[in-house]
């Protein structure tokens, strides 16, 4: 028999759930939430929207296919993860697969969590826990391992977005990549991983990303790495010596390769880059991505559509830059904490700049438009939420991960709902009746979950040209 280490989950109402530890043996506290998605734990756990939360997965068999490699995609983002870190405070499941099996797996879920110092407990009656959260609403709680107690921590009182947003702007550009654009529906052959790696070396003009979740700094030998990349922009940056250091977590990185590419730029250098992009391709659209804790797949979706992306901190004043539209990313916590972002979007609306909001971005757009948001009793965290596009009979199955919602009733006259959840009639997206501002509460970028609403990115691209 396996030697089991006892662990427990205590909720703020005093209820206790017993289980066993399978990951880091550290006690933590956070807001306890549940997600009903049946696949995609590597993607979910690296979704910054889960910042500060203890996540309970309702699907009982977890860890089955292990954790994939750190390889990077053609945008030099970790191919298999949604950011560079695990964002949950702790994981609560029913049945853990100590033995995993998948061709892409490199390690077990437990090992991965341990590397990131995240506790995980199994053997919990997750259905009972879920019912409790459903009935009483999301609650604070703590995972106690080895009897070591911790203080209750309420992430909703903290500006979580500040913790997950990047610290300085970064530009992503994906020119000359047309050949790969039809990739979406084609078959990934056995050798796909290798061929992707090659392509990314050759065709990326700028491979810039940044560690987005840390307060500690780490230095890398950038110059050497950057020289390997045939990037015009980066070369120019190097010449100017304008490269500053990326911030990175002290925890072991998910993708060392990707981190080594991480660079960011001062505002001044961003201007130069934009100029270069415009010079290279006149029709190239540039969008500001307000990073409130963005998932990589949002960026992949934008880059895939030939957009240049300037990813900026959530409170960044981007109006001094030359750009065509704004994407408001997903992110954790209460949207009302993002005061600067709301103010910036208000300004963008006045200036008639196209805006596309996702998840938290939907709430921020609503707040900027003058509507109100509220906290849902226990949120939507799942991959099966049906959303009907207003005025049609078309329904889309969507991935969701949010604790707050837009109050449709408070939408100003010139605004209207775009999508509505047919399970509970909550708002799932808004749009301006005449102007190019729209948003969705769900995740069109999926990962995890269904890809049915990816077309919204195309809609946004259309808006940029109008």
């Amino acid at each position: 028999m396996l030697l089991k280490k006892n662990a427990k989950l205590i909720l703020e109402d005093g209820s206790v759930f017993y289980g066993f530890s399978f990951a880091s043996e550290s006690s933590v506290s956070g807001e306890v939430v549940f997600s009903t998605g049946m696949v995609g734990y590597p993607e979910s756990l690296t979704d910054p929207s889960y910042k500060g939360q203890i996540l309970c997965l309702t699907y009982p068999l977890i860890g089955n296919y292990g954790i994939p490699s750190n390889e990077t995609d053609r945008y030099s983002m970790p191919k298999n993860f949604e950011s560079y870190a695990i964002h949950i405070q702790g994981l609560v499941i029913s049945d853990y697969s100590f033995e995993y099996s998948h061709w892409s797996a490199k390690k077990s879920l437990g090992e991965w969590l341990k590397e990131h110092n995240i506790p995980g407990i199994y053997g919990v009656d997750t259905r009972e826990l879920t019912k409790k959260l459903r009935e009483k609403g999301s609650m604070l709680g703590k995972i106690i391992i080895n009897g070591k107690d911790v203080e209750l921590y309420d992430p909703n009182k903290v500006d979580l977005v500040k913790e997950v947003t990047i610290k300085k702007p970064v530009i992503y550009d994906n020119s000359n990549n047309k050949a790969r654009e039809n990739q979406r529906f084609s078959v990934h052959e056995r050798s796909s991983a290798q061929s992707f790696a090659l392509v990314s070396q050759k065709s990326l003009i700028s491979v810039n990303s940044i560690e987005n979740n840390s307060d500690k700094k780490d230095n890398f030998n950038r110059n050497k790495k950057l020289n390997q990349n045939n990037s015009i922009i980066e070369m120019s940056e190097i010449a100017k010596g304008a490269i500053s250091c990326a911030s990175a977590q002290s925890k072991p990185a998910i993708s060392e390769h990707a981190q080594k590419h991480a660079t960011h730029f001062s505002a001044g250098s961003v201007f130069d880059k934009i100029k270069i992009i415009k010079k290279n391709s006149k029709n190239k659209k540039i969008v500001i991505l307000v990073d409130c804790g963005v998932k990589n797949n949002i960026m992949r979706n934008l880059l895939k559509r030939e957009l240049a992306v300037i990813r900026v901190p959530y409170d960044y004043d981007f109006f001094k830059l030359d750009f065509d539209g704004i994407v408001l990313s997903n992110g954790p916590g209460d949207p009302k904490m993002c005061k600067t972002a709301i103010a910036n979007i208000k300004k963008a609306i006045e200036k008639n700049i196209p805006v596309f909001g996702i998840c938290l971005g939907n709430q921020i757009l609503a707040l900027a438009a003058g509507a109100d948001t509220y906290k849902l009793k226990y949120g939507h965290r799942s991959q099966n939420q049906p959303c009907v596009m207003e005025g049609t009979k078309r329904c889309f199955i969507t991935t969701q991960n949010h604790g707050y919602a837009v109050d449709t009733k408070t939408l100003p006259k010139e605004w209207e709902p775009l999508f509505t959840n047919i399970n509970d009639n909550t708002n799932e997206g808004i749009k301006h009746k005449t102007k190019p501002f729209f948003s969705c509460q769900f995740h069109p970028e999926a990962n995890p979950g269904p890809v049915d609403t990816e077309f919204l990115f195309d809609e946004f691209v259309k808006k940029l040209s109008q």
Partner: protein
Amino acid sequence: MEKIKLKKVLLVGSGALTIGQAGEFDYSGSQCLKALREEGIKTILVNPNIATIQTSKGMADKIYFLPVTPYFVEQVIKKEKPNGIMLAFGGQTALNCGVELYKKGIFKKYNVDVLGTSVQTIIDTEDRNLFKKRLSEINVKVPESKAVGTVNEGLKAAKKIKYPVMARIAYALGGQGSGIAYNEKELKEILTKAFSYSKQILVEKYVGGWKEIEYEVVRDKFDNCITVCNMENFDPMGIHTGESIVVAPSQTLTNSEYHKLREIAIRVIRHLGIVGECNIQYALDPESEDYCVIEVNARLSRSSALASKATGYPLAFIAAKLALGYSLTEIENKITKKTMACFEPALDYVVIKIPRWDLEKFRKVKFQIGSEMKSVGEVMAIGRKFEEALQKALRMLGIGLHGLVCNSIKINNNLNTELKNPTDKRVMAIAEAIKGNYSIDKIYSLTKIDKWFLYKIKNIVDTEKEIRKHGIKTVPSELIRLAKQQGFSDFQIARLLFADKNYEDNALAVRNLRKKYNIVPYVKQIDTLAAEWPAKTNYLYVTYNGSRDDIRFQDKNSAIVLGSGAYRIGSSVEFDWCCVNAVLTLKELKYNTIMINYNPETVSTDYDVCDRLYFEEMSFERVLDIYEKEAPNGVIISMGGQIPNNLAMRLHKQKVRVLGTSPESIDNAEDRHKFSKLCDRLQIDQPEWIEAATIKSAEEFANRVKYPVLIRPSYVLSGAAMSVAFNKKYLDKYLQKATEVSKEHPVVISKFITNAKEIEIDAVAYKGKILVYAISEHVENAGVHSGDATLVLPPQFTYIETIRRIKGIAKKLASALEITGPFNIQFIAKNNEIKVIECNLRSSRSFPFVSKVTKYNFIDIATKAMLDIVKNERYNTVDLDYVGVKAPQFSFSRLHGADPVLGVEMASTGEVACLGENISEAFLKALLSVGYKMPEKNILLSTGTVKNKAYLLESIKKLEENKFNLYATKGTHDFYKKYGINTKILYWPLEKKEPNILTYLKERKIDLVINIPKSYEEEELENDYLIRRSAVDFNIPLLTNPQNTKLFIESISKLKMEDLEIKDWDEYG
């Protein structure tokens, strides 16, 4: 709302249960009828399967017990003039029938709309070339393949594709006729056979060893498209999905794989334009994300029934609504009654389906499983650990397994062989291999079963090892808890903890110990949304991986009905009909109804049948668990056949209140000694019998009463391991076989009476007094298992005196056993002697038949009797103005090599019944319903013993008079020549001379084969076997029983197709 305005809709049913097409279509058809009725649409049903719920009163406005063939369906259309027709709810039978009618222009001619998926789309999915073309239009991959029309074309294609290749038949169900060929010789063999079923065969690259994944997809006409469930086959490609252990949801797929296949599924289904429900199957490379689409079934299927039960999403009901023009966003989720149908269920449990085979029942059949379906039923288990669900499922199979471990079943093959070329025992072989220190890698390389599944199996084996180290006094509570969480039964744990063989008491000791440790199971709901929303219906399972019950147990006035379990030969949809009717009566009497059953193909496990459904084991342990929690007024065990019936005494000993006939009486009827004593006391005659403990005593008995003798174990169901011995040699051989099947119960040997008539009575009694009864006679003489016999009601050939005496015996037995509820007695009548051969104090296979023919619901009467509600009514079941004939459906064509001959072992997989003005009409309709055709020209005769030849003389004369060309074997030819009947001689198969019978069969020059075996049990001569088998393989109607043959010839001499009346059920009587 843009719904179609419809007044009257015709639903095409699936006919008799066969391998590959079973009870799931009762489920889908019933849901479809409910959906139509909710809309106020008049419903017409064509389905000769009388044992189904869908053919019950109140389900459809008009029910036609007629063959599901283009001819009859057209006649019904002509008569009823429906506006719409539903083709997707009756399996491949209905679909094929619909396609034929469409091609003949019948729908256009009578102005009938095909609802839901269009016939053109159906053709696109069924025609392999069109399918490939349609998929390539949207860049979706299919395995390299070529559709061919001749054997030579096929061989040429295979050369190009390269071996191994798979041959698939268009428009086939359950992979019929398909096979894997590793070389030209094998392919030639497969193709030759396959072309007798189909004009088109697909020769396809074989992707054996890849993962097999399925999605159930739903689409409405507004282009909303969702995948309700995905499923992963435990067994990789190469094993038909109907033969595979299937798991829902998929376990080893990453997000990327899951959603890539999901996206393709939706793209394909949109492109094809399916409206309603369908299933798409993939092969997925286990080492990359490469995939190919194997097939799309544009109809409700076995998989969709499974998906429906696995998720709680009522697929068939929704599909029917979508066919009527609803949008997915307009239909409520019937489980939550709060959310909408347009969503994809989230499961918080794991579901495992395991097929149930009955291969032991057939002579000469191959035990290996592969690309063709051979299983006759399936079970579904739910748990919160894979191990838990797996062990539950293995117990549910009812083949003597106590779970994955602690069994006494032996693996006959060499382990390596078994792992590589699996039989029905593969999963046990994996456990054995792990015990034998095979590495997981090695097992994987032999089986290609994903290692994740193998690791889980290893967990169970490890726990077994651990428990074995202990005794009941030393076993740690945490170990018991772990074992229970991994699905070990008390019985399994007891076997590991105790040295003695006092299993039942030991299991109770384990039960008491774990209860002391507070290790008890909890009841959880299936709610389609993983607890995100409160559920309104109570679709339940029991798990040890939990800490609290989802529901409260405070229902007063409740009753539990035990279901019928897995369909198997001898216990099938008819028992589900009984269970559902019992539930309906209980509901009517304002009882809270609780159903326990684990068969996903049933109506009794539908979300809307009972108040609480436990999708659970029907083991003593689990029934007691549920009983203790629910504390009902009582339990009904007499509706689900022998499986619940077997629990009677054990439940009774634990003070469970069994409704109806007391368990002691049941025991008195089941225990041959007690029953025999009772018969002696009541002066009721029985064939002589003894209980033999040794081979010697058996031989002595046989010598005394004279051979042949019948050998069987007690507590018999459908003649399991029952055999007839004609001499000492066979007696010895069969004795070994019978004792192996059941060591705990002694072997019973009785005198086997030949050339006798067999008669049955189905009845209901109250406190020993018969309330209603029906007597049916068998067309075949005694010796054919009652489940394989053709039943006639009311009897046409039995003397009134015999009927009177049978009634008298039934009265005596009912009174002596103080029967309250349903019972069935089987009799043998010969030379004015009547002997009782079987007495079951439960409902029988023929209850739906007698209920529907007499129009008295025997189950309703029985259920009420059990609750002391008795109406003073007289029921007329003898003097009817019409005749009902029930005929068996065989599935020999799907069982490679099986000898298609009738005996005391039941072999049929389903049945039909039809009504007619006279026996000939009803009989012909019934036979046409199970695949017989009116012979046009050529008939082959090989009529067995001289006695049988003489018996059939008049019939053969009639054939000659009717201008049939008669072919015969030498002996038969010579015999009839003496009587002036001309037949043409064909050579025996082994004579290898032309004109040879086999050549005639292969070239399909024969319309009907009459081959009467010389005896019931003796291994037939190879020649006769070859004739029968070829007839089956080349899809030529075959008659092997003299009485049946005689009646068939009489009937076709009297009646032509157009004489068979198109009348619905209500028009009779």
